[in-house]
């Protein structure tokens, strides 16, 4: 058994040696599918969740709602910005879950361009900020503002 473990460790080191050059050469293909356009039609911010929500899941959603109500109330009224808590387990939300490819509890931002294009992006960084509300709200405000400016 000990031998197996040493073999395992040996294999792991071999893997390291094999894969590391890939990163150093930087031949990764970026997944960037963001299209820069100054003509933004609409932005959607959705908090996807399950019926039974974990503490962090609720916090991510509540802070997002508060950010939008605080900083984007005009855009919300004019329909330029849409926000919603979406229970992914309800059948009526299936289309939205599929459209955003929500993989569970998540905060997703969708951008509609006037030329008909649509891009979506999951924001995972908000999860690191739930212990600091100001930090969370300031960060999400910047993200949404950037989306509106077309970046």
């Amino acid at each position: 058994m000990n031998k197996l473990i040493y073999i395992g460790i040996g294999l792991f080191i071999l893997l390291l040696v094999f894969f590391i050059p890939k990163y150093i050469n930087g031949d990764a293909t970026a997944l960037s599918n963001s299209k820069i356009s100054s003509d933004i039609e609409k932005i959607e911010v959705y908090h996807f969740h399950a019926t039974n929500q974990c503490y962090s899941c609720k916090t991510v959603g509540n802070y997002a709602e508060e950010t939008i109500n605080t900083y984007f109330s005009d855009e919300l009224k004019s329909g330029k910005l849409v926000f919603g808590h979406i229970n992914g387990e309800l059948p009526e939300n299936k289309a939205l879950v599929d459209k955003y490819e929500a993989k569970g509890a998540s905060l997703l931002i969708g951008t509609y361009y006037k030329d008909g294009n649509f891009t979506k992006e999951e924001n995972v960084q908000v999860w690191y900020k739930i212990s600091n509300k100001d930090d969370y709200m300031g960060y999400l405000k910047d993200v949404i503002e950037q989306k509106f400016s077309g970046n």
Partner: protein
Amino acid sequence: MTLMSFMEAMSTSSFPLIAAFFIGLMTALSPCPLATNITAIAYISKKIGDGKKTLLTGVVYTLGRMFTYVLLASLIVYIGLNVQAISLFLQKYGERILGPLLIIMSLIMLNIIKLPSLKSGDKINRLKEKLSEKGYFGSFLLGVIFALAFCPFSAVLFFGMLIPLALKYSDGILIPSVFSLATGLPVIIFAFILTFSVSKLGKIMNKVQTFEKYMRYAIAIIFLIVGAYYTWRIWI
């Protein structure tokens, strides 16, 4: 700089292996893996008599986690399985199976449920006994199963951060391996601490065997509590 912003900065590091490691550490600290890791530490430390064995069992548990994570990442990166489908499936069923499974395990450890005894005649059974005796096979299996129990936050970290990283670099092996190592690190560290402290205590008391018996009951109770917690959270 707070701990969280440090973790965030490291998890989004431009060097993928560092990012993978810190996403793993964050996972180890998130509620579900924390609960399963505590259970694993309890299980691993049941044979505290032999320090080196305890440490190796911790490593084997981590290898079990690695098996699951590498398998999932490879299926996605190399075979192109749908991330959304796997993620939703595991979040739906992984957690559901975990609770009842832990309860059954605790009942076996408490001898309330008795496993049919195996005839130790043939070689396969003898090997099986040897493996389970040492606890390696059990802790490997524990790692494999525990890694499948995704909760919302650990799913965000794995499917929302680690998998995109693995896809970006077309690497379904090393990135998830480094991630797994970090998720099992607390268990290895605790096994290490136990190795040097509790085993000495047991030897000083010269009552290792009695100690082990009580440890086994204590561990069974931990399994029962964690199992009941998951079952209550998901089913009720």
